[in-house]
């Protein structure tokens, strides 16, 4: 299947869009991932922070228990070494509270709770301090028993546990909340990465598929092109071979036709010589007809041979002064260049090759200054000979006989024309004009074989030019041939005077 250009462009656009979309998705995924990792780190830090608060709270509770336990030991024994854990707890507690304060700095509710906790701790520590100082008195033990019995201390410790528990619950709640949010976010990130990658994969797959299709199509069309080229080359070779064969064929046909024809003419001639006295006038006339016709056929064969040979000769192009060539051809054909009305168009500065204007007999031809040509000298000479002899032949009965030759550059070509005021031709049969053995006049009216114009056309076409003509019955004909302007600057500037 062949794609139109628009389809190809659309496909190329889609490939480009698909590729950049996949790239954008991958960049977004990378960005999301890095953002997610940052958040993950932050979340981990927050969770760690929460755990820290909880453990700090536990530490505080444990310090208070230590202080409480130590104080009780001291109440019972009165031994100062029992107070060692108490002193240590007292020393630890401010730092622990400070830590908690700074850890819950961002949470006003916990700050408030912390203040309440602090209140309870201070009260309890005051209580313990009073008890310890009471124990150092004489009757301290009893007083303490009485004070403990009031349950005041126990109440404070309960309140402390309660408060710590509340604060831990708050932190645990926060932890659960954060873990949940974190989990949600992680799952979002996971989904983004999953679907993003999937989309990018699909885009790339589609792009790949399109590219693959394009490459395959291109390979196929390349192969088709190569095949077509090969076929064309083979065809050209075949055509050349056929042409050669045809030319060889027409050549040998022409050659072999001459043998019997020579016999016909030769034996008719022998009869004329040997049996003249035995033939009456009518018999002699008939022999004459035989000989005339064999002569005519001989001319046909010669022209056919010339035409066949034309296809085989190589064109040796050179710059040609058409003025000189035309003057020579006119002289050869027994005509002369008219120096009357167009007297100053005398074509060449070399008078030796020109017929002297007024002394030569024969029809007069007017020649305008001719532009220089680029082509094969002998072939173009043949063209001029055929065209001018045609003009002379077909205008022979016109009075006065007029033939005009011109040639000037037109665009990229040089156009030469031969016009006459002779018999002309019917434009209706124009397509037969340049055909081989095609004639628009009978041989009785105007003798000829019908090969002259075919030769003209063949020569001009082989030069890369073209031929055409206009005509009207009884009013003359004008034949044109155009040669490509092969090298600029070789044109003749006209007639040197």
């Amino acid at each position, binding site marked *: 299947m062949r794609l139109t250009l628009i389809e190809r462009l659309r496909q190329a656009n889609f490939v480009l869009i698909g590729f950049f979309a996949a790239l954008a998705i991958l960049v977004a995924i990378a960005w999301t991932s890095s953002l997610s990792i940052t958040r993950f780190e932050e979340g981990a830090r927050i969770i760690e922070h929460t755990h820290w608060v909880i453990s700090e709270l536990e530490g505080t509770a444990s310090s208070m228990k230590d202080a409480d336990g130590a104080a009780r030991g001291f109440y019972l024994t009165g031994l100062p070494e029992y107070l060692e854990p108490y002193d240590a707890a007292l020393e630890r507690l401010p730092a622990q509270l400070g830590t908690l304060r700074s850890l819950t700095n961002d949470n006003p509710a916990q700050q408030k709770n912390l203040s309440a906790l602090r209140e309870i701790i201070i009260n309890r520590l005051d209580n313990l301090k009073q008890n310890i100082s009471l124990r150092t008195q004489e009757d301290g033990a009893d007083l303490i028993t009485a004070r403990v019995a009031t349950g005041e201390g126990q109440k404070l410790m309960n309140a402390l546990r309660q408060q710590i528990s509340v604060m831990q619950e708050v932190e645990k709640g926060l932890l659960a909340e954060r873990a949940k949010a974190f989990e949600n976010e992680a799952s979002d990130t996971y989904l983004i990465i999953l679907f993003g990658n999937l989309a990018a994969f699909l885009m790339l797959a589609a792009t790949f598929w399109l590219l693959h299709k394009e490459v395959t199509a291109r390979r196929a069309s390349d192969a088709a092109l190569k095949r077509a080229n090969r076929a064309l080359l083979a065809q050209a070779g075949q055509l050349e071979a056929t042409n050669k064969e045809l030319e060889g064929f027409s*050549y040998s046909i022409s*050659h*072999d036709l*001459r*043998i*019997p*024809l*020579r*016999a016909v*003419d*030769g*034996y*008719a*001639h*022998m009869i004329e010589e040997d049996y003249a006295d035995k033939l009456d006038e009518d018999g002699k006339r008939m022999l004459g007809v035989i*000989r005339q016709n*064999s*002569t005519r056929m*001989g001319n046909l*064969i010669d022209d056919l*041979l010339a035409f066949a040979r034309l296809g085989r000769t190589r064109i040796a192009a050179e710059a040609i002064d058409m003025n000189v060539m035309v003057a020579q051809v006119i002289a050869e054909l027994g005509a002369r260049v008219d120096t009357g009305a167009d007297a100053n168009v005398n074509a060449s500065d070399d008078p030796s090759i020109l017929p002297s204007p007024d002394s030569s007999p024969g029809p007069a031809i007017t020649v305008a200054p001719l532009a220089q040509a680029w082509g094969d000298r002998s072939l173009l000479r043949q063209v001029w000979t055929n065209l001018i002899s045609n003009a002379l032949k077909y205008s022979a009965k016109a009075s006065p006989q007029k033939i005009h030759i011109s040639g000037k550059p037109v665009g990229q070509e040089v156009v030469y024309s031969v016009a006459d005021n002779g018999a002309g031709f019917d434009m209706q049969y124009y397509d037969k004009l340049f055909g081989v053995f095609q004639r628009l006049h009978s041989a009785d009216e105007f003798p000829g074989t019908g090969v002259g114009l075919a030769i003209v056309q063949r020569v001009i076409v082989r030069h890369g030019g073209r031929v055409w003509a206009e005509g009207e019955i009884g009013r003359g004909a004008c034949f044109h041939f155009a040669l490509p302007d092969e090298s600029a600057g070789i044109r003749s500037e006209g007639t040197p005077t």
Partner: protein
Amino acid sequence: MPDFLEIDILLVEDTATDAEMTMRALRKKGLGDHLLWLKDGSEALDFLFSTGEFAGQRVSRPKLIMLDVKMPKVDGIEVLRRIMQDESLRTIPVVMLTSSAEETDILESYRLGANSYIVKPVEANEFIRVVTEAGCYWTLMNRTPNADLRP
């Protein structure tokens, strides 16, 4: 056949009508007395080299050989080549008399050493003129090195 064949003109021509017209034209100029017509190249080689039909036949040395180019079996070009390869035959004038105006035939004939290349005209008067002129020129006007009978 007589013991000895005296031949002035050897005409090698496969077309009987061409041969008859040629011989008639030459005869009218008095050149037909010692003329031998052979119908193809192999007969010509037999005559020139005393083989086949002409084995043992004593023949004179022709003053002129008229050779057609296109002939069956052995063509004129081949006969010409064989003549020019033979030391004693190569001095006999050879005129190629043919219907072929093919450039390659002309070139090859001259390359091999033909003395003349004549395209037979179709028109009878022209044909007679050309044949008799060639015959007169090469047999009457032209001088060739004097060579005796071949052994």
